[in-house]
């Protein structure tokens, strides 16, 4: 027994010096991302995390004397198979308490941003979202009356996004529908912040430009099928069904039931469904040529300039085959991290306040998404959007949509 104890002590002594060495005071700047890593958004978020990692690797994990440390946090839970408010709150609190954290990249879902924004705002921590697109998060007058004030208890802006918000996406979606000759539309939403928000924008603009709205309904995302709804829609005979919602909230099943019932020739969804999981869930035969997907940017293979460089670097680093493309949001993960890393050298003090200030001053940034700035609300000035469809079970770019 004694021998054992002695051995443990000896070992402890032997280890101590090497520990002391790594503990040498090191200047660390920590970046956290909080994205749904469990569940069907996983494919999408994996490529976003890859994009973030790529941006960090390009500076070899160092800026000046500072080492960049990155932690990939999950805000989903297996029970929900989707983002979970409890987990998102936990992540935000953890990040707020850790002094070395200087930026929080996230969230993927707008509903999740609603939870972490006030927490991080009080902590004065910079937040950059690559994907949350609900307008009310940043724009006064575009959401509820008290938005976005309730997310900014200190009154300062700490939330930025590199992706254009849904007041643009819903708008161009309605325009695109009209271009395709749609005259009557039936609108569904998943009753979540993002889905309902974008469906509202779509509905309002559709009415403005003379598309008749035959019906508007919130669905039960966990229902086993939507056949009854499909019958109701079929009886209304729309030219198009618009669903504001995500893959996780049954977009695939809706596409399937509408197609099976032959209820509509066209089915349009927003960027929450711009992921391969949507086609997998719906079954290719149910969406080929009939599904239309809007996306707040361009698919990877349509990017130019820095964007094309990003695509090449990404494909090389993650060993993608010739015909494989990163998912649509990969470039947003990259851009969110890249704009941050480029702002750090400009920051007067390398702490939360200094870096937040530096990022907020981003103007005419030449990035993978083109040349853009952050406006006074923290939104990107970028407005490039794309319309996509599905062909042979793959997304296919149709056209650039713009305001």
């Amino acid at each position, binding site marked *: 027994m004694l021998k054992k104890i002695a051995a443990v002590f000896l070992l402890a002594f032997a280890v101590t010096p090497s520990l002391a060495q790594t503990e040498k005071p090191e200047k660390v700047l920590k970046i956290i991302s909080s994205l749904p890593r469990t569940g069907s958004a996983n494919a999408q978020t994996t490529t976003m995390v890859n994009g973030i990692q790529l941006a960090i690797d390009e500076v070899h994990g160092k800026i000046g004397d500072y080492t960049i440390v990155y932690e990939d946090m999950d805000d989903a839970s297996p029970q929900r198979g989707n983002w979970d408010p409890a987990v998102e709150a936990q992540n935000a609190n953890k990040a707020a308490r850790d002094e070395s954290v200087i930026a929080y990249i996230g969230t993927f879902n707008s509903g999740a941003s609603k939870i972490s924004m006030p927490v991080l705002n009080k902590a004065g921590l910079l937040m950059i979202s690559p994907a949350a697109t609900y307008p009310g998060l940043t724009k006064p007058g575009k959401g509820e009356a008290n938005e976005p004030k309730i997310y900014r208890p200190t009154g300062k802006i700490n939330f930025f996004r590199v992706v254009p918000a849904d007041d643009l996406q819903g708008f161009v979606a309605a325009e695109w529908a009209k271009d395709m000759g749609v005259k009557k539309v039936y609108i569904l939403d998943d009753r979540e912040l993002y889905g309902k928000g974008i469906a509202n924008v779509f509905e309002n603009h559709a009415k403005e430009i003379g598309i008749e709205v035959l019906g508007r309904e919130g669905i039960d995302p966990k229902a086993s099928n939507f*056949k009854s709804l499909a019958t109701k829609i079929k009886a209304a005979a729309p030219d198009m069904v618009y669903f504001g919602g995500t893959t996780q909230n049954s977009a695939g099943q809706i596409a399937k039931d509408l197609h099976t019932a032959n209820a509509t020739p066209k089915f349009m969804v927003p960027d929450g469904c711009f992921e391969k999981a949507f086609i*997998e869930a719906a079954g290719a035969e149910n969406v080929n040529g009939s599904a239309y997907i809007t996306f707040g940017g361009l698919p990877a293979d349509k990017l130019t300039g820095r964007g094309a460089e990003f695509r090449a670097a990404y494909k090389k680093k993650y060993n993608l085959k010739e015909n494989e493309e990163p998912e649509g949001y990969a470039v947003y993960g990259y851009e969110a991290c890249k704009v941050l890393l480029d702002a750090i050298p400009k920051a007067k003090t390398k702490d939360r306040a200094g870096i937040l200030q530096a990022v907020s001053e981003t103007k005419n940034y030449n990035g993978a998404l083109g040349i853009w700035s952050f406006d006074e609300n923290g939104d990107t000035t970028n407005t490039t959007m794309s319309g996509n469809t599905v062909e042979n079970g793959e997304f296919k770019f149709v056209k650039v949509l713009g305001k």
Partner: protein
Amino acid sequence: MCETLVAMILSQTTAGATSVAGAQVAMGWSDVLSQQLITGVSNGMIIALIAIGYTMVYGIIELINFAHGDLCTLGSFLALTLVGALGMEAWSGMGGTAAVITLLISAAIFCGALNWTIDRVAYRPLRGKPKLALLVSAIGCSFILVNIALFWGGLPMEVFGGGNQAAAPKDFPSLISNENLLGARSAITVTWRDLFVVIVTVPLMIGLTWLVKSTRLGKAMRAVAQNPTAAALMGIDVNRVIGSTFLIGGALGGFASVIYALYNNTISFQMGYRTGMDAFTAAVLGGIGSLPGAVVGGIVIGLVRALSDGYIEARWTNSVVFGILILTLVFRPSGILGAKLREKV
């Protein structure tokens, strides 16, 4: 009805001339109503088949077997795995029928055996202990099964075309034709799938009734349900009878899981929660412990869901279903067909 038919034929001839291929035929109100009823009955039959599993177990050991819905999830995952492994999508003609029969039988055997095992491992050691212990054990089993399904979904299913995103909803190949039996031009759609649900469910229900009413095992089951101690004194092996109940209830759940997968064409690790909830509600509505009650309850819930989705709004459907449940229980505490029983929960 006759006028509608004439109107239908007329509208078809004109619609056929003017519209593009595959465009909709205008639906009158009676067509919509019939369509909703068809959907409601098909959905209700599936719910009923699962509800039987709840009601049988409750009838015999007064346990609400929360794991039953999730058992069905695993049945669907087994079916999807078999479809992929045996390449069933390519089986055509009689092969298609063979594929469906293979799936039904394998899932039934699998779920029956699994349900029997669950009883043996998690419930039987708790017999005679407080009822609450049994209930907690059932909830635990439900969690375990959900997580097995999550793990199963994470296996590299892309070889089967299912993708390997553990929690993603998985597309279940259409093995049963979606062709309209009333002809492509008809406003009302009755597909092979709707027919399939009825063709499989009705004989199973009749068979079960016969089994419970007329066989030795059925007699033993009824005896155990009435009074386990007295049944044991009469020489009935109570544990064996309870085991068989789980086996049969599980097998029906297995059938239901394949019907569910072929009818809805999507499966996910969470589907058991919702279907289980619907089935449990159906069992309570019909009168828990009563077999015909489960069937009636299931069909009523299927119809209410369809009509509420169709004529009220989808977002109110759950409120309507549970509102009806509450009203029924207030005026008939033992459910629609339930016998007046002694206090059970």
